């Protein structure tokens, strides 16, 4: 049975923030499925709800945010129905999270060994010596030289890349089945970023864990993920394999995101060429348009867009590729010029 059950299945997830100004539908009916050893790139602008989606899966949404609907099936079990203690025992154990800023996520006044051993003790009844042993092994697995020395260090004594490796090592301590990484390389140098990405790829391949990589950076996700889900205003607007989404973007918002990337590819690079912008701003979640949330910024918007589009399958040759748009298809001008 376990072979067919996906690691994670999110169904119609609804997370709302009850603020004084009103109720914000931050995550508004997000659904996706992630199998063992698969990497999902969750992409979108700031405020699109991608991070809150991650926190909702972890059960770490703080008030005023509330997960109000939908299911989070982890290996077939609905996490939203579990009590606090059951969720806690899964967190860091079967499902781990990596955050954006490793300086902020490591406790500044505790040594690395204290923090790592605490994380071990949260899920395993082992002696301190065994916990230290596990911590050393976890650091070594992340390619950290002389792990025993690093264990005795305070976070401020380590470089940014080293800190993020430590944070990832903590996430991997218990060999989780799912890792949710919330922009973990955004705060790092590009070279360090590349190292960490390749290490994550190796880990996913070796351990068979599933990975959700939350990012605003399509170029990072392109090299890492198997699938891409593009989020806009709390909804997934396009979902498919990396190749489908990047080579044949159907939703005008996805096309806009790709068009706004500077290209380092020699064939498509044009010195001095203007990067395309997406006109307008992300919608105010308090005053969401009744239909497609992207319609006010969309060149293709018609009267039909005043109704909410479902996820369509716009391309017969790629049935898994979906877009939430009444007018899907290849981009009109800029994308053709680039292609």
């Amino acid at each position: 049975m376990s072979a067919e059950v996906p690691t994670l299945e999110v169904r119609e997830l609804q997370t709302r923030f009850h603020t004084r100004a009103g109720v914000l539908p931050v995550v508004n009916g997000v659904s996706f499925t992630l199998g063992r050893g698969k990497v999902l790139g969750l992409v979108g602008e700031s405020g699109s709800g991608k991070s809150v989606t991650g926190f909702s899966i972890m059960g770490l949404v703080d008030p005023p945010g509330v997960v109000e609907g939908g299911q989070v099936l982890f290996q077939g079990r609905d996490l939203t129905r579990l009590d606090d203690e059951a969720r806690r025992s899964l967190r860091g154990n079967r499902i781990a999270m990596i955050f954006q800023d490793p300086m902020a996520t490591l406790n500044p006044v505790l040594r690395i060994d204290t923090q790592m051993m605490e994380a071990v003790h949260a899920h395993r009844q082992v002696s301190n010596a065994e916990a230290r042993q596990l911590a050393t092994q976890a650091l070594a697995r992340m390619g950290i030289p002389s792990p025993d020395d690093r264990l005795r260090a305070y976070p401020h004594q380590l470089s940014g890349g080293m800190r993020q490796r430590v944070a990832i090592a903590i996430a991997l301590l218990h060999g989780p089945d799912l890792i949710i990484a919330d922009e973990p390389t955004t705060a790092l140098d590009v070279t360090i970023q590349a190292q960490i990405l390749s290490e994550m790829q190796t880990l996913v391949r070796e351990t068979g864990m599933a990975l959700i990589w939350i990012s605003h950076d399509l170029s990072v996700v392109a090299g890492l993920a198997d699938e891409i889900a593009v989020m806009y205003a709390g909804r997934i607007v396009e979902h498919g394999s990396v190749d489908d989404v990047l080579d044949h973007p159907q939703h005008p918002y996805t096309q806009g995101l790709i068009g706004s990337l500077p290209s380092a590819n020699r064939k498509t690079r044009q010195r001095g060429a203007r990067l395309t912008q997406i006109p307008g701003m992300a919608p105010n979640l308090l005053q969401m348009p009744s239909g497609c949330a992207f319609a006010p910024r969309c060149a293709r918007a018609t009267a039909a867009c005043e109704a909410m589009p479902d996820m369509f399958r716009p391309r017969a040759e790629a049935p898994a590729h979906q877009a939430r748009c009444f007018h899907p298809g290849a981009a009109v001008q800029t994308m053709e010029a680039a292609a």
Partner: protein
Amino acid sequence: MKAKTFDERSIWWRVGADFLHSRVAVFGLVILALVVLAALAAPWITPQNPYDLMQLDVLDARLHPGTPSSSAGYTYWLGTDGQGRDLYSAIVYGLRISLLVGIGSAAIAAVIGTLVGLLAAYAGGKVDALLMRLVDLLLSFPTILMALMILAYVGKGVGNVVLTLVLLEWAYYARTARGQALVETQREYVEAARGQGIPRWRILTGHILPNCLPPLLVIGALQIARAITLEATLSFLGLGVPITEPSLGLLISNGYQYLLSNEYWISFFPGVALLATIVAINLVGDQLRDVLNPRLQK
């Protein structure tokens, strides 16, 4: 050969190094160390046990500083009080009581107050509101009035003075600990610790508490000075420690009646000892605050 990859010294080591930058603070620390050492070594550095009535000679009462004893073989370098007590011995023994009361009450109050503050921050809601209104209530009463009321109820004695001071002081720690814990709870490392599945209570005690300690440490230092002053005041008013075991405040009080007859030393020297202790503690506390406050760091 082992390359030194990073500065292995801990945060507390750096705090110590920063602390020593101020000469005034080092001066305070030295005075404080002398006072504490003197109090600890009292039986060995004093000619007389001022609490042993058999060793007191009433004929030696109210002698000027520097007068030799008529019966025993030593000199009263700081004079004697109304019962013929050697003031130097009485001050050193009095320091013991003052420091015991000050440090003891501050330490107990710190533990209780910190726990209450963390509990309030952890529980939130009604528990938080209830505890913090209690704290507000305590802090809004005039301290001396509260102390007199409590002591009038529980009676005199060193233990009861400590109890009174603890009842008056824990609220300061509770308020600071709660405020600091609420700030720290918002920090990302707490989110990360939750993401690691560390139980909430362990996050509070293992992750948040260590980050709350610096301000509590500063309050602790200043509250010791406050407690000593308060104990001296209460003893001066006759509600503190028993008259047979005089603290500094009681010595000052005992000499008060002789001040107008030019027998100043009975109040003066215990007063100087009290002043030196309080100033030293405050100097150390101030420097601790400067060193531990990241906003004031150079």
